[in-house]
């Protein structure tokens, strides 16, 4: 009854074929046991997930006694509610085959604690997403155990399920049905897990508690308001407390705490909607005007009377750089110029700069410049960074048509690099422009002065003078306003 790899490959190949295959493989309707959920639009199905059972191997001391062992396991979530679907009619029944003693099939029935996003889990494989699932033994708090006698003879397991692409993560705590140690026959006892097996050879449990998030990883720009999603599913009678903990680069602290019966502290920082928590089990945290200082790992810790579980959420700040390209003349008389590509206000730190040049003589082909150096990066007050990359280039001679230089900046925030370009014209040209401008200006002033003097003496010479002035200004103006270098920024 384990899934063959060939079927899985077929699943990914075609979406249409996928539905049939996946539903057949992942979904087994129940005959007699099927209980229809309250809403007529929902239907109870079984969700089967490939999992790894992780357990600690025996060892000596230390944080983990002696490493971990991994075994293949199946997790069957029974009675999961999914929206009614036509093709469900054609689904084959789940017929468990006799299994060997060692094989692990965890069968958890969903009763009052529902599994969120069960539909996403159901179709994940078809949508090209990987579902990773790990099961391990769950250790209850000693205080919780002592509470009732009924709890004594149950074992608990915890399953962490992640859908790839950081879209969903859920932790499910499952509890075996109560048993009496001596009333269970040897053959109905899992040799290593020390829990009773059902007649079908499975470990039968009920879902006791679930904590989930739709935002296991958040990438956002500065100043945004972000919602760190955290939800919980538990049996209605239970009392719940929520703590949000922020851990970042070696320092951690509690940033929000909700305990029923205690007055909620008024904080100016991150906040939680308590009403939402009480109504729908939504323990999401909101952070307004996100700054670099808010970056980190946030842990949503949910505790009930008997259980606790959490979700880990990464918050990353991604701020795209602003790029500016300009030239600085090298020392006087030098034929070299320094081009500076200033990369401003970006986060995180890593940027890559590529320099290129386009020479018209070379049909405008872009040639990479490898010789560049960069300044030390500077940290701005908002936590973003600034760095400059500099290249030294030869100023084109007057015969050459000039070169276009480009600076391409790649950063994690950018889908395509930002490219800034600059046209470096001949230094001699520029100087002659200025010279010409000076000559023209002087000529104009000189002529005006002449006219002024001559107009005092001879009235008939005025019109001639005026014509000449106009002609000179027209030719001079473009040279004066021509920028030394064209700047272009994308």
């Amino acid at each position: 009854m384990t899934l063959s790899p060939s079927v899985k490959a077929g699943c990914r190949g075609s979406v249409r074929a996928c539905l049939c295959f996946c539903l057949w493989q992942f979904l087994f309707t129940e005959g007699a046991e099927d209980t229809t959920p309250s809403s007529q639009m929902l239907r109870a199905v079984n969700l089967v997930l490939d999992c790894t059972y992780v357990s600690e191997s025996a060892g000596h001391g230390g944080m983990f006694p002696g490493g971990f062992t991994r075994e293949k396991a199946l997790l069957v979530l029974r009675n999961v509610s999914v929206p009614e679907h036509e093709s469900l009619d054609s689904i084959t029944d789940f017929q468990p085959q006799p299994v060997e003693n060692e094989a692990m099939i965890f069968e958890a029935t969903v009763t009052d604690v529902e599994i969120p996003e069960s539909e996403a889990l159901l179709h994940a494989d078809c949508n090209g997403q990987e579902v990773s699932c790990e099961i391990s033994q769950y250790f209850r708090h000693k205080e919780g155990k002592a509470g009732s006698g009924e709890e004594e003879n149950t074992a608990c397991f915890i399953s962490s399920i992640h859908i790839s692409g950081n879209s969903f993560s859920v932790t499910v705590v499952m509890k075996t049905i109560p048993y009496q140690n001596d009333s269970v026959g040897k053959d109905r006892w899992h040799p290593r897990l020390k829990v009773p097996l059902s007649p079908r050879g499975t470990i039968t449990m009920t879902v006791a508690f679930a904590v989930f998030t739709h935002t296991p990883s958040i990438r956002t720009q500065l100043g945004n308001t972000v919602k760190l999603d955290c939800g919980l599913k538990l049996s209605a009678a239970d009392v719940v407390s929520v703590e949000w903990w922020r851990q970042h680069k070696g320092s951690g602290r509690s940033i929000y705490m909700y305990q029923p019966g205690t007055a909620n502290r008024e904080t100016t920082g991150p906040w939680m909607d308590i009403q939402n928590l009480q109504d729908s089990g939504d323990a999401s945290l909101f952070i307004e005007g996100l700054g670099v200082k808010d970056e980190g790992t946030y842990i949503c810790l949910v505790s009930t009377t008997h259980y606790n579980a959490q979700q880990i959420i990464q918050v990353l700040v991604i701020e795209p750089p602003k790029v500016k390209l300009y030239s600085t003349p090298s020392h006087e008389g030098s034929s070299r110029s320094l081009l500076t590509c200033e990369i401003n206000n970006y986060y995180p730190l890593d940027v890559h700069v590529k320099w290129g040049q386009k020479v018209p003589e070379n049909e405008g082909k872009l040639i990479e410049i490898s010789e560049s150096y960069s300044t030390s990066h500077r940290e701005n007050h908002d936590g973003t960074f600034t760095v400059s990359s500099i290249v030294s280039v030869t100023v084109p001679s007057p015969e050459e048509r000039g070169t276009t230089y480009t600076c391409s900046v790649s950063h994690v925030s950018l889908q395509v690099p930002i490219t800034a370009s600059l046209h470096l014209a001949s230094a001699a040209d520029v100087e002659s422009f200025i010279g010409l401008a000076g000559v023209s200006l002087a000529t104009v002033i000189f002529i005006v002065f002449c006219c002024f003097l001559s107009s005092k003496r001879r009235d008939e010479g005025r019109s001639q003078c005026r014509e000449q002035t106009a002609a000179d200004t027209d030719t001079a103006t473009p040279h004066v306003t021509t920028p030394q270098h064209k700047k272009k920024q994308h």
Partner: protein
Amino acid sequence: MFSGVKMRIVPVFLFFLGLLCLSDASTGSHSLRYFYTGVSDPGLGFPEYYSVGYVDDKPIRWYDSVSQQSEPRAQWIAKNVGPEYWERSTQNQRSWQQTFKANVKIAMDRYNQSRGVHSFQLMYGCERDRDGSTRGFFQYAYDGQDFISLDKDRLIWVPAMVGAEITEQKWNADRSFAERLKGYLEQTCIEWLQKYIQYGTKELDSKVRPSVKVWDRKPEGRSTTLHCQVTGFYPRDIEVKWVKNGEVILHGTAAKDILPNHDGTYQIQESVEINPKEESTYSCHVDHSSLPESLSVLWEPKSSLSIGIIIGVIAGVLLLIIAVVAGVIVYKKKQKGEEPVPSYSFPTDGVTQMVLQTDWLGGYNAAPGKCPEPQILSPWGFTAVCRFG
């Protein structure tokens, strides 16, 4: 310069570990902190295991798997504790070394890693304010990332990494471990801290006056920036602000801007952009516990460049009327006058420290090609060591 960086890497990271969660000395608080590190492959030039203890920002004790001996790192500690202290510490550290050796491997196993260099770290310590309030922390890291932390107040372990949940599960099931640590952090640790503070009163309370330097710089295409460099001070806490016509315009006390010097003192630089055309006075004010009153250094602007340009242009035009050729020459000279005046010289130890800062913030990006992927370092620090050459 690069070889200098290479040689400094180990002390740099140790030092930065030491700066973590630094106590706020201005409120008279003191701290005792320990940092343990184990690596899977000691080939990096690191010992397989080493640990260091600090009182405030002063190292007091060192142990590594090469010497296998706990050693004093401060005279005032060596003078005040007897040989049995080092004996006990050595025994204790040898067993930690074994534990860490196992833990690195097991953590690698947890993440299905069979090769590569991996690290496992622990840091813990306590802090006591002058008013008697205390704080404590105890946390682990794997590969430079927070792995699991103790929430001392709620007596629970908080996993910060996917994969740490099994450890969290187990440790949270039995509160006695967390309770023992809470006891250590709130009692034992504080008692020892107070002992150490007594032993090292002179060193821990020493005060070194800062030297202050003010200069301006006008980067091409940007407004003039005034820099105030304050260096060589101890203790670490300082207040540096820029004052314009008697009003504070920039107030810098951000702890992260304070950098360590090689001699145990600190430095900070505060920069402010100004409009040089405004008729204003700017001064840099420094408040530090070593100074009886605040120190103020006035910025003296050089003759304004813009006025020079205006005069130059007028003069040029006048000259042009007389002689066109002469006019061109004069104009060229004025163009030259627009080049930024190099008035910037960085103090030598400042340059060294800038390199250190770069290492701290993330990789070292001044040597492209040698360290291809600079990355943000965490205070767990050392996994992101960039190998030079």
